[in-house]
């Protein structure tokens, strides 16, 4: 049997992410993967990735050391909310465990009661990851489940251009072939409506069995070829300023999030600089104003892009799947756009089971993608909702718009009872949801009645003991800068 031919259009970080995974996992005897290095806009400059990136890199066979050596990479153990939902907020949201159960009772329920008993500690003081971020410390988890250090969880902060290089090398090593040129025309099969061939600007025509559109918002295949429409969504912060600020040394394993009157700022803390993106509203602030504002914050080298929140009406259509910004675009707040590119690539690999009949697998692919995008949108909505006090634009927006029914249910359920609505397809873990709410000042108004079975003095002793233990343990975690040096030397 001749191998099938798969063409990825777009030689940006999205294209190379998909190419690496397919190249590694589709044996060349069954499918050959090509990347047409169609120019794509550099929308993604940096990523702060959660821990699931580690298992993706395992699928690709990319070692952490390679990434740390090549690409200005640092670790990320949490996101620092710095004046997001209130001006005094300094909170680190991280993955992994918060506190510990006591006689089978969930920790956050005990914490909810402790607040009523007058405890004033922030919820992030009960996470070794969050405390480590505050102390500029970082390490990998140990395997001994008894040890508190088995709870350490980290992801990575990456600079997009050098990270894309690592992915590209990895893809080429996995026998992915690159093709120079840009797609300027797409040929369809008149009978099936499938894409049969792409024409390049150099006159070359390339036929294939399956096409992946990683060409960015333009969507040369999904829109240009197959005319799948784009659906616009509300986008208050419709402009992005990207810049950087220098840093003296490696500091916190984190990214920072802050809300300002005209927009929100995300700073990914890399080795010798931070890469900053400021999403703002062009109605309130022009580019010059934004530049001056960011300069005052020490952010320089600023360039501007338009921002849209939108998604295709379908992502896998006929024999073509759009991945990344060709498929959908959301704000980069907590959940990074590249995370959904990785999820899409894994989803595609799982569902691409043959080339005869795409109809049923594509509908499942689209269903799963819609669930993920809805999840991202819900999480982003809640983020903006919590930031109302910091931004006049958001206050005004939420006067005429409200949260989706599902987001509202999730929020109300938690704020009344400390309980969670949850499905296996949720984009955050239960513990992340709890920590997200607590960190943004949504404290449960009531707690489970079994919490009252614990005497108040025992409850207070227990949670204070945990707090102290976590702090002491975090103080012994290596400094982030030393940990990186160790990994590079080890």
């Amino acid at each position, binding site marked *: 049997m001749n191998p099938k031919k798969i063409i990825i259009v777009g030689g940006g970080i999205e294209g190379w992410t998909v190419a690496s995974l397919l190249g590694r996992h589709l044996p060349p005897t*069954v499918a050959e993967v090509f990347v047409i290095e169609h120019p794509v806009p550099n929308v993604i400059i940096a990523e702060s990735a959660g821990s699931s990136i580690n298992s993706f890199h395992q699928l690709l066979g990319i070692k952490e050391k390679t990434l740390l050596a090549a690409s200005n990479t640092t670790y990320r153990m949490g996101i620092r909310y710095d004046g997001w939902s209130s001006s005094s907020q300094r909170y680190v949201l991280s993955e992994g465990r918060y506190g510990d159960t006591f006689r089978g009772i969930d920790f956050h329920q005990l914490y909810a009661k402790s607040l009523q008993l007058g405890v004033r500690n922030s919820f992030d003081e009960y996470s070794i990851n969050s405390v480590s971020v505050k102390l500029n410390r970082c390490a990998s988890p140990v395997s001994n489940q008894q040890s508190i250090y088995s709870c350490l969880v980290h992801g990575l902060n990456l600079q997009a251009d050098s990270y894309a290089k690592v992915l590209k090398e990895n893809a080429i090593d996995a026998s992915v072939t690159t093709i120079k040129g840009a797609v300027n025309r797409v040929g369809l099969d008149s009978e099936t409506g499938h894409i049969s061939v792409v024409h390049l600007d150099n006159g070359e025509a390339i036929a294939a069995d399956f096409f992946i559109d990683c060409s960015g918002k333009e969507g040369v295949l999904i829109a240009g070829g197959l005319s799948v429409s784009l659906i616009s969504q509300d986008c208050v912060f419709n402009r992005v300023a990207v810049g950087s600020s220098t840093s003296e040394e490696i500091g916190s394993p984190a990214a920072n999030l802050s809300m300002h009157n005209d927009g929100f700022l995300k700073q990914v803390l890399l080795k010798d600089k931070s890469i900053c993106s400021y999403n703002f509203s062009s109605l309130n602030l022009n580019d010059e104003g934004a530049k001056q504002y960011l300069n005052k914050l020490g952010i320089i080298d600023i360039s501007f892009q338009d921002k849209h929140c939108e998604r295709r009406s379908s992502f896998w259509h006929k024999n073509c799947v759009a991945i990344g910004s060709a498929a959908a675009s959301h704000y980069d707040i907590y959940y990074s756009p590249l995370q959904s590119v990785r999820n899409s690539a894994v989803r595609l*690999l799982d569902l691409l*089971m*043959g080339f*005869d009949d795409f109809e*049923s*697998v594509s509908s499942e692919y689209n269903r799963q993608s819609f669930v993920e995008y809805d999840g991202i949108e819900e999480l982003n909505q809640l983020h903006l909702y919590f930031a109302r006090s910091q931004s006049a634009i958001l206050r005004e927006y939420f006067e005429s718009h409200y949260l989706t029914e599902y987001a509202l249910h999730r929020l109300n*359920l938690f704020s009344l*009872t400390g309980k969670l609505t949850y499905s296996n397809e949720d984009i955050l873990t239960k513990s992340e949801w709890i920590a997200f709410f607590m960190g943004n000042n949504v404290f449960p108004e009531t707690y489970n009645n079994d919490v009252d*079975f614990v005497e108040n003095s025992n409850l207070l002793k227990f949670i204070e003991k945990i707090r102290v233990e976590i702090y002491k343990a975090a103080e012994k975690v290596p400094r982030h800068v030393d940990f990186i040096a160790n990994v590079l030397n080890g």
Partner: protein
Amino acid sequence: MIQNPIKKIVIVGGGTAGWMTAAACAKKYPATTMSITLIESESIGTIGVGESTIPHIRHFNQFLGIDESVFVAETKATFKMGIAFKDWGSLGSEYIHPFGPLGHDINGVEFHHYWLRSRLSGSPYPIDNYSLAAVAARAGKFQHPCDDQSSLLSTYSYAFHFDASLYAKYLRNYSEKRQVCRKEGIVSETILNPQTGFIESIRLNSGEIINGDLFIDCTGFRGILIEDVLHSGFDDWSHWLACDKAVAVPCERNSEQLNPYTLSIAHKAGWQWRIPLQHRTGNGHVYASDYMSDDEATSLLLNNLNGAPLAEPRILKFKAGQRKKNWLKNCVAIGLSGGFLEPLESTSIYLIQVGIQKLLEFFPDLHFFEENIKEFNDQLDAEYVRIRDFIIMHYKQSSRDDSEFWMRCKNMIVPEALANRQKIFAACGHVDHQQYGVYAAVCIGQGLIPKSYDFKINALPMDAIEKYMEKIRLEIELATQSMTNAEMYIKKIIGNGGSA
């Protein structure tokens, strides 16, 4: 907000659902903090046909702290590793839905794709031959899975066949030891709060009035609180699940081997269960009364017993479906009062368990927040629908056309989500892992063979795949030989009075 805890739970109805709920609440809430009353009447019989379970029951017993060997002895239980389906996909066909995996995945591709490929090149072995649980069950072998994760003998799970009325009795004793107050009586009146419509108290036929904060309706099909009083409404699913009656009869255990699996035999207008206990065999015939008379159903059952009947056959009537709201105001329906699905996949007690587990997770306080109730209902509904669709699939995915009943199943329009899942499995063997059970084993067992397998396995040469599959089969055969006879194993456990 002021913390406003529930202090009094009233459970109406004994039986399996009532006593399981009472036991779990008594375990979770110490008697000093919670008063629990259960009202039942000797004059109202319990349904008690749910004698076959799935592995989750073990978590429930663990939660209660019940020692397994005590449980096995007290409820005359036997072990099961799966369910055998005879004549389901077609007349003469047979497969086991095992409590354990099929083979194992290679390079991230699920085992059944390798099986599909080997089948194309002529391999004759049915897919359940690659499941240790299925092969051991057929051989009449059972022992507890071992702890060594690297051993094949650790890779299956198990559940029980047991006498549900003995279980209820055992849990009654358990509950009463933990100060659950049992009251003999029949509910004669329910008093509602005129403003809120919440249940304030119930009056028994003795005249006694019992107040409560939270009422659990375990009154069976009737749902005397959730339906008769609160009018929850019922989602009727009988257009998908046409069986509406069952005739049940126990028979003697003969000298044949003890089968560590539940047997389900499809008949002309329904199916028959055979559940071996230590002291007898439970039998029943579930049928659609539109297609078969009670007499015919009864004689069909009696003709297919493998031992002498021990009682007069008893006929039960039911309707597949679910209460529109299992939790309404301060009343929660658990068990048959909440919904009914035929026990084809042994899920009746499991659904009781899910109701209890979710109730404890979303245990209310006196505010009875609507959000909390909605979440409980949504999650429970999702579980009912998941199992409903799985059961419907057995009927739909059959090539039987030998009766009006089976023709009807073949032609019925199934729920859309199920239809999509079946379409994608039929096309390429893709399985959605949110679904219940070992999905591929049942689809393929029913005769739904995917049109193609995952092309990603084409990289492996055919002879390597064949060798690998033979290795799995041999390993399973050896493991099965090394296992203990299921009947001996039970005897050992009861004899020891402790764990084997």
